[in-house]
């Protein structure tokens, strides 16, 4: 069935179809609508979820951790500072191997306070042990929520999943999307039947030990192995999902990459803009292509290296500033992934779109223009730059 939904409503609707056991709910722009929509489903008896209206995101994630450990399926939604407030508990969730589903509606982190989109919130949590899957549009936001539980709950994975979409651009824009029938969703998701949980009557369980140096490292290695195992499971779930939806997903999307010489690597809604620019350049005879990263954790390093192997120049576009003075987080991952190639493309990093700064097709075309020069001259300096900001002179 086709429907006109905002990204937030699409995510809330997916959660309604899943009918999770517990939801931790706390408002923050731009994700607020998700718990609001869900509250209406609760009020109308369309779900029988235990809807816990906590006093902070810290408690929201605490509730999810506890509920999931108790044997229940738990979900939540947040953005920006809300995710930052959860930070400590993101690690607890992942290390306790609790497959919670969290919808992150990406928004810039304070300060200064800003409610618009960039990826600084979820990028800050990239090393917390959560699987991270990013959406380009409303359809993907909806689909990613449906795939989260089959991925995270698999015994060899057992990791929490953060599905991300761009604040306002995706969360508030209304698009036509295809929804699955609720029965099909329920069948796809299945029942949550963990092997061990707090409320298992015949076998009490203790979760969250003080872990001394004699054991801690083994537990971390197990967690690292689980993240490695997640990659295959993500592809398996995508294949199963394609069977019921007709929509195909991978670790990333390659757009006109077959013979591409110049390529962009980026995340999220900017892919739509970039695709339009690529089409225009292709029409002009430029061999341009795009890689849209869908799965950032686990990072598809080897696969990405294979895809970019034949290109001559690549611009990695980060929608968050890592303040490493050496480029953004996507750039660091991508450059590292390409290191093992015998012949590497030239690589630059462009940080863009911070705090909702718009990016247009002309901007993307300019990036490709620079890549075309680099492909000829080999001159990548300066490797790491920002795009879209006014110059100091303009500000004065």
């Amino acid at each position: 069935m086709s429907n006109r939904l905002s990204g937030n409503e699409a995510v809330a609707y997916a959660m309604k179809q899943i009918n999770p056991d517990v939801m931790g709910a706390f408002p923050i722009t731009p994700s607020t609508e998700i718990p609001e929509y869900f509250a209406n489903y609760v009020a109308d008896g369309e779900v029988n979820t235990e809807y816990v209206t906590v006093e902070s995101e810290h408690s929201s994630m605490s509730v999810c951790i506890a509920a999931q450990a108790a044997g229940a399926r738990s979900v939540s939604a947040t953005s920006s500072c809300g995710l930052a407030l959860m930070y400590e508990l993101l690690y607890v969730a992942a290390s306790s191997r609790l497959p919670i589903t969290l919808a992150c509606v990406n928004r810039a982190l304070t300060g200064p306070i800003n409610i618009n989109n960039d990826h600084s919130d979820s990028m800050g949590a990239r090393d917390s042990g959560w699987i991270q899957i990013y959406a380009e549009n409303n359809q993907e936001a909806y689909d990613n929520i449906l795939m989260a539980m089959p991925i995270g709950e698999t015994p060899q994975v057992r990791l929490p999943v953060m599905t991300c979409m761009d604040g306002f651009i995706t969360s508030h824009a209304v698009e036509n999307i295809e929804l699955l029938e609720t029965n099909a969703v329920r069948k796809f998701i299945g029942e949550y039947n963990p092997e061990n949980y707090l409320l298992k009557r015949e076998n009490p369980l203790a979760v969250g030990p003080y872990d001394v140096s004699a054991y801690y490292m083994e537990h971390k290695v197990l967690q690292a192995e689980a993240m490695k195992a997640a990659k295959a499971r993500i592809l398996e779930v995508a294949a199963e999902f394609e069977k019921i939806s007709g929509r195909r997903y991978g670790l990333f999307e390659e757009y006109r990459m077959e013979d591409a010489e110049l390529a962009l690597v980026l995340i999220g809604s900017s892919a739509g803009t970039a695709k339009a620019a690529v089409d225009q350049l292709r029409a002009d005879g430029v061999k341009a292509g795009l890689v849209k990263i869908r799965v950032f954790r686990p990072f598809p390093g080897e696969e990405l290296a294979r895809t970019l192997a034949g290109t001559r120049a690549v611009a990695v576009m980060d929608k968050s500033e890592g303040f490493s003075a050496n480029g953004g987080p996507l750039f660091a991952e991508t450059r590292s992934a390409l290191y093992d190639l015998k012949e590497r493309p030239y690589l630059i990093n462009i940080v863009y779109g911070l705090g909702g700064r718009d990016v247009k097709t002309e901007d993307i075309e300019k990036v490709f223009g620079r890549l075309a020069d680099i492909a000829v001259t080999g001159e990548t300096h300066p490797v790491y730059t920002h795009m879209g900001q006014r110059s100091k002179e303009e500000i004065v």
Partner: protein
Amino acid sequence: MSRVYNLKREVEKPVRLTGGHRLCAGCGAGVVVSGVLRALDKEDRAVVVNATSCLEVSTFMYPYTAYMDSYLHSAFENSAATCSGVEAAYNALKRRGKVEGTVKFITFAGDGGTYDIGFQSLSGAMERGHDMVYVCYDNEAYMNTGIQRSSSTPLFARTTTTPVGTVGQGKKQNKKDLTEILVAHNIPYVAQTAPIGNFKDLHTKAYNAIYTEGPCFLNILSPCPRGWDYPMERLAEITKLAVDTCVWPLFEVEEGVWRLSYTPKKKLPVAEFLRSQGRFRHMFQKGNEWMIEEAQQYVDQKWERLLEHTGA
């Protein structure tokens, strides 16, 4: 409580906090926890939640747990939210026919995890009305990190962040009245107790808290031999002194009705409690008599106020 208290019968129940945990000898926490868990009916199960604390690191060090019941520790400041999450899961799974039987939800946290860093989480969970018991084992400082002051530390007490020096005379502020703040949440049951005598007061209040529907709060005095600086064998005696000096009065508030649980036959001078512990030693130096007077005045004031509340 419906049944007559019988210590012998209670201690014959199977233990729910086993021995062999790593709490110090002379620590009140283990006594408090086993005392509260003993109030559970034998056939009922519990999920025990801990804030990060001495208790947590001493009773669940991987791969050993001291608890016979299911147990969850997540972080320092979120034990109330955590307990509410388990309760929410129970309600959801019960509704969906996925769990059976009665399960009770009990959180234990120290005063640092309750009066201070966990205060927001506690207030939120109480306001939401989860069917749970929150137990603060109050040892009046951050003991797990090495005796730093909390908002529960009493006036003049020496801690590692309120040291006694040429100018400093211990903590400058009085103890926060958390029990009264919890009363202001209008929850069904709030009580203050301590492990003294035959444990009847602690047991009865724990039973009431566990078997009263809705959020219930127990504040239980839990002396710490390291932080309070007393010989471990004096635990019971010092706890009793706290009660008999009215430093730690025993009372309960059920559906808004205050009741005094214990009136000392002879209200002892506060100095007797203070003298029993090294953390107050400087108060007994010549010239510091005013400190003892001030401490006495404060306790008297609080006691009078409590008598007004309880109509005793």
